[in-house]
C-alpha cells in the first residue's frame, strides 16, 4: 500500500466518531436506535481503518507520517505550526488496542443503557440512572462516547504535543460530561466537577511544560524533538530558570504532572474512584482503556526527553519522580482496594495501582515493559469493568424480580396489561405493569455506606451459577490482573516490569526498592482480586436480589467474550526471548517492534534471564490468589449479614483503608473549604460586591446627583424663564386686548387721537408744513 493512501487512511481514522457525534446531536437525537447504530458503525469504521494501518506498519515496518501547515505565522515556513499524523510502532499498537476496545464498549453500551428494554419505553426521568430500563438520554450517551473516541484517536495519531494536548483536553471534557451523565444525581455531578478540577491541575502544569518546550526548542513535533539525540543532550545540559533543574528535567517534570492528573496517580488520584458515578461503560472506556492510558501513553512517548541526560543508565530527575510516585501509588491504591465493598471502586483503585506500575516502569527505564503493560491492562481492565457492569445489571434484574414478587401489580380490568397473574410475573424476564418503575432503582433499595444496592459486594454471592458467561470472563480478567502465570496477558507484562526492576536494582539500589514494593503490590492485587471474585460470584447468594439475578443480554456478553480472548492472548506477543533460560528465538515480537520507536535514541538492552523476579511474581500472584480465595471461599463462604473477615484481621487499619486514608477529607479541609471561603468572602463580598458594585453604585449615584442638578436647573431656570416669558406675553396680551372693545366709536376716537398726535409730531418735530 503506498504511502499516500496510508496517510489518508490515518487522517481518516479519528473522523468517523466525530461525524457520528455531529449527526447524533443534530439529527438523530430522537431516534435511539439510529443513534447507536451510527455510533457503532463509526467506531467500526475507525477500527477497520486502524487495523489496515496497523497491519501495514507491522508488515512493512515503515512509519506513516504527514503534516499540514495550520497556523502560518511569520514568513518562514519552518516556523509555522503544523498539524500532522505519526504512526510509529508505539502509535500502531495503540491503534490496535484503542478502536478495538472502544468498539467492544460501544456494543456493550447498547445493552447496558437499556436497549433490550425498549419495548417498555422510558420509565425514569432524564438525568437519573434507569437501572435495567431504557435510559432517557440514550442518544446523548452515544454522542458523548463518540466524541470521546474521536478525541482519543486524535491523540494517538497526533505527531506533535499540541495536537495531543487538544485530544487530551477534549477527553477531559467528555470525561466530565460522561461522569455527570446522570446529572440529576448530586453525587454524580459533584464527581464530574471533581474529576475535571483535579485533572485540570495536572493539565495546567502540562501546558506550562509544553509552552516551555516550545519556547526553548521552537518545535513540538515528536519527530523533531524526540529523535534527535544531540538536541536532547543539549536540553539536558542547559540549565532552566529554576535553579538546579535542566531544561529537559523541568519539561519532563511538568509533562509528568499532566500524567499524574490524567492517570490518577498520587496525589491527584482522588477523582478516579468518584468517577465511578458514571455509567459502567464510561468507567470501562475512560478509566481503563483510554483516557487514563493516554496519560501513560504521553509520558511513554516523551520518554526520550524524560530520559535525556542520563548516562550509563542513571536515572534522571523526572525518572526518579516517576519511580517514586509510581511505586508509592501502586501500593497505596492496592491497600485501599482491600477494604472497598463497591465492586466498581475496587476496580478503580486497581486501575490506579496498575497505572502506577506503568509509571514506575518508565521511571526505571523499562520503556517497552511499560507500553506492554499499557496494552494488556487496557484489555483486561476493560473486561473487568464491563464484567462488573454485567454483574450490576444482573443484580438489578434480581432486585426487580424481588420487588415485583413483593408488590404484585394490581391490574385494572380496563387496562389490557397482557400478563395477568402476579405469581407468574415474578419469574418472567420483564414483568410489565407495576408501579415501581417510576422509582430510580437506588431510591427503593437501601444504600449502605453510600454504595448503591446493586453495586455492593456484600449483597452479592453465588452469581457464578446464575451468570455463567459473566463469571467466566470476569475470572479470566481477574486472573490476568493478578498475573496468573503463563496463560494470562497480565502475567507477561507484569513479569517484564518486575524483571526490569530487578535487573535495574543490581546497579541502582533505588530500583531494588521499586522491585520489592511492586512485588508486594502484586501480592495485594492478587488478594483483593480473589476477594472480589469470591464475594461476588462464589458461595451462596446473600440477598434475595442476588438469588434472582440473571445473565445479561448478548449485547453485553459478546464484548466480554472478545475481551476475554484478548486478555489471554495479547500477552503471548511479548514472551521474552530467553524465557526460563530457553532460547526461544526471536519471539518477543512486541519488544522488537515497539523498541523500534526509540531506535537510535535509547539503548534498549535485552534482559538476561533471572529466575528471581519470575519466581517472585509467580509467588505473589498465586499466593495472593490462594489467600484470598481461602479467606473468602474455601474456608467458609461469607454468609449474609456476616462482616468482612478482613475487618477482624486488620483491626484498626481497616477503617483507614476503607476511608481512603482520609485523603478526600484532607483535601476538602485544606484546599476546598478555604478556597470556597476565600471565594465567598473575599472575591464575592469584598471585591465584587463591595468594591466593584460599590464603585458602580457610586457612579450611578453621582450620575443621579448630576441629573438632579440638571433637573433643578431645567425646572428653575429654563421652565421658569420660559413660563415667565410666556406668562408675560400672555399677560401683556390680556392687558392689551382690552383695546379691542368692539365699539366703533372708540376705534374712531383712537385713530383720530393717533392721527392728531402724529400730525402734531410731524408738524413740530419734523417740520412738515402745509
Amino acid at each position, binding site marked *: 500500500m503506498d504511502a499516500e493512501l496510508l496517510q489518508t487512511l490515518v487522517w481518516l481514522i479519528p473522523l468517523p466518531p466525530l461525524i457520528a457525534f455531529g449527526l447524533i446531536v443534530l439529527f438523530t437525537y430522537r431516534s435511539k436506535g439510529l443513534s447507536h447504530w451510527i455510533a457503532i458503525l463509526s467506531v467500526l469504521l475507525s477500527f477497520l481503518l486502524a487495523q489496515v494501518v496497523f497491519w501495514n506498519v507491522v508488515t512493512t515496518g515503515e512509519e506513516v507520517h504527514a503534516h499540514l501547515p495550520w497556523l502560518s505565522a511569520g514568513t518562514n515556513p519552518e516556523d509555522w505550526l503544523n498539524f500532522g499524523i505519526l504512526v510509529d510502532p508505539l502509535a500502531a499498537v495503540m491503534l490496535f488496542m484503542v478502536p478495538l476496545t472502544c468498539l467492544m464498549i460501544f456494543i456493550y453500551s447498547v445493552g447496558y443503557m437499556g436497549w433490550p428494554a425498549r419495548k417498555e419505553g422510558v420509565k425514569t426521568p432524564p438525568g437519573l440512572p434507569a437501572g435495567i430500563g431504557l435510559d432517557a438520554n440514550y442518544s446523548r450517551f452515544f454522542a458523548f462516547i463518540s466524541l470521546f473516541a474521536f478525541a482519543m484517536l486524535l491523540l494517538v495519531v497526533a505527531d506533535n504535543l499540541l495536537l495531543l494536548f487538544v485530544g487530551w483536553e477534549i477527553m477531559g471534557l467528555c470525561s466530565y460530561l460522561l461522569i455527570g451523565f446522570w446529572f440529576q444525581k448530586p453525587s454524580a455531578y459533584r464527581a464530574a466537577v471533581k474529576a475535571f478540577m483535579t485533572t485540570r491541575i495536572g493539565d495546567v502544569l502540562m501546558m506550562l511544560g509544553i509552552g516551555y518546550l516550545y519556547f526553548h526548542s521552537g518545535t513540538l513535533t515528536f519527530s523533531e524533538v524526540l529523535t534527535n539525540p544531540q538536541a536532547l543532550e543539549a536540553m539536558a545540559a542547559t540549565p532552566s530558570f529554576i535553579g538546579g533543574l535542566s531544561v529537559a528535567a523541568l519539561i519532563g517534570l511538568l509533562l509528568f504532572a499532566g500524567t499524574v492528573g490524567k492517570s490518577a496517580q498520587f496525589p491527584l488520584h482522588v477523582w478516579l474512584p468518584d468517577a465511578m458515578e458514571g455509567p459502567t461503560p464510561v468507567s470501562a472506556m475512560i478509566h481503563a482503556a483510554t483516557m487514563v492510558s493516554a496519560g501513560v501513553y504521553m509520558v511513554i512517548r516523551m520518554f526520550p526527553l524524560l530520559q535525556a541526560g542520563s548516562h550509563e543508565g542513571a536515572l534522571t530527575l523526572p525518572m526518579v519522580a516517576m519511580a517514586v510516585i509510581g511505586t508509592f501509588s501502586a501500593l497505596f491504591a492496592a491497600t485501599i482496594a482491600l477494604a472497598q465493598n463497591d465492586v466498581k471502586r475496587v476496580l478503580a483503585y486497581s486501575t490506579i495501582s496498575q497505572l502506577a506500575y506503568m509509571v514506575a516502569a518508565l521511571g526505571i527505564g523499562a520503556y517497552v515493559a511499560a507500553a506492554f503493560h499499557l496494552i494488556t491492562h487496557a484489555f483486561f481492565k476493560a473486561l473487568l469493568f464491563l464484567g462488573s457492569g454485567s454483574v450490576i445489571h444482573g443484580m438489578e434484574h434480581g432486585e426487580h424480580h424481588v420487588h415485583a414478587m413483593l408488590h404484585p401489580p394490581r391490574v385494572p380490568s380496563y387496562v389490557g396489561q397482557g400478563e395477568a397473574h402476579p405469581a407468574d410475573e415474578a419469574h418472567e424476564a420483564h414483568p410489565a405493569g407495576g408501579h415501581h418503575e417510576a422509582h430510580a432503582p437506588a431510591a427503593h433499595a437501601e444504600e449502605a455506606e453510600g454504595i448503591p444496592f446493586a453495586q455492593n459486594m456484600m449483597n452479592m454471592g453465588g452469581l457464578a451459577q446464575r451468570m455463567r458467561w459473566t463469571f467466566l470472563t470476569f475470572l479470566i480478567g481477574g486472573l490476568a490482573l493478578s498475573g496468573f502465570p503463563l496463560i494470562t496477558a497480565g502475567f507477561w507484562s507484569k513479569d517484564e516490569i518486575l524483571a526490569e526492576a530487578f535487573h535495574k536494582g543490581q546497579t541502582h539500589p533505588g530500583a531494588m526498592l521499586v522491585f520489592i514494593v511492586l512485588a508486594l503490590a502484586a501480592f495485594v492485587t492478587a488478594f483483593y482480586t480473589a476477594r472480589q471474585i469470591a464475594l461476588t460470584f462464589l458461595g451462596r447468594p446473600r440477598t434475595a436480589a442476588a438469588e434472582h439475578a440473571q445473565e445479561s443480554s448478548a449485547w453485553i456478553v459478546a464484548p466480554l467474550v472478545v475481551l476475554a480472548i484478548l486478555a489471554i492472548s495479547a500477552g503471548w506477543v511479548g514472551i521474552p526471548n530467553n524465557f526460563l533460560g530457553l532460547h526461544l528465538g526471536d519471539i518477543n515480537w512486541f519488544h522488537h517492534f515497539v523498541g523500534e520507536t526509540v531506535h537510535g535514541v535509547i539503548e534498549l538492552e535485552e534482559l538476561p534471564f533471572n529466575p528471581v523476579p519470575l519466581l517472585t511474581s509467580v509467588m505473589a500472584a498465586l499466593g495472593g490468589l490462594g489467600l484470598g480465595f481461602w479467606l473468602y471461599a474455601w474456608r467458609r463462604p461469607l454468609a449474609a449479614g456476616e462482616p468482612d473477615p478482613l475487618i477482624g484481621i486488620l483491626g484498626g487499619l481497616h477503617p483507614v483503608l476503607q476511608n481512603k486514608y482520609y485523603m478526600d477529607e484532607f483535601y476538602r479541609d485544606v484546599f476546598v473549604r478555604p478556597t470556597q471561603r476565600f471565594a465567598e468572602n473575599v472575591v464575592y463580598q469584598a471585591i465584587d460586591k463591595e468594591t466593584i458594585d460599590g464603585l458602580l453604585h457610586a457612579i450611578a449615584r453621582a450620575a443621579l446627583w448630576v441629573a438632579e442638578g440638571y433637573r433643578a436647573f431645567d425646572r428653575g431656570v429654563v421652565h421658569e424663564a420660559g413660563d415667565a416669558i410666556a406668562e408675560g406675553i400672555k399677560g401683556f396680551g390680556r392687558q392689551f*386686548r382690552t383695546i379691542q372693545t*368692539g365699539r366703533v366709536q372708540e376705534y*374712531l376716537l383712537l385713530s383720530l387721537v393717533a392721527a392728531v398726535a402724529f400730525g402734531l409730531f410731524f408738524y413740530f418735530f419734523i417740520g412738515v408744513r402745509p
Partner: protein
Amino acid sequence: MVPLNWYLIVAALLFCIGLYGALARRNAIAVLIGIELMLNAVNINLVAFWRYLTPQLISGQAYAVFVFTVAAAEAAVGLALIISIYRNRETVVVEEIDILKW
C-alpha cells in the same frame, strides 16, 4: 366781501361739531346725524373753494353732487343697518354692539 377763510372756519367748526356728535353720542342714529353734519361741512368746503378759486370750472359743483349722492346712499344703508340691528339686538346703543372683538 367774505374772505374764504371765514367759510373754511365755519366748515371746520361744523365738521368738529359733527365729529363730536359721531364720537360721543350713544344712539346709533345720533352717530349717523353727526356723520351727516360732517359731510355737510365737507360740502361747504368744496363749494367755497370752487367759488373762490376756480369758479370757471364746473368740477367743484360736480364733486359736491357726488358727495350728496354718496351721503344719501350711506344714510340709507346705515339706517337700514340700524333697523336690522335693532330687530336683532333690541338695542340701538352703539356701546352695546361690541361683539366684533376678542
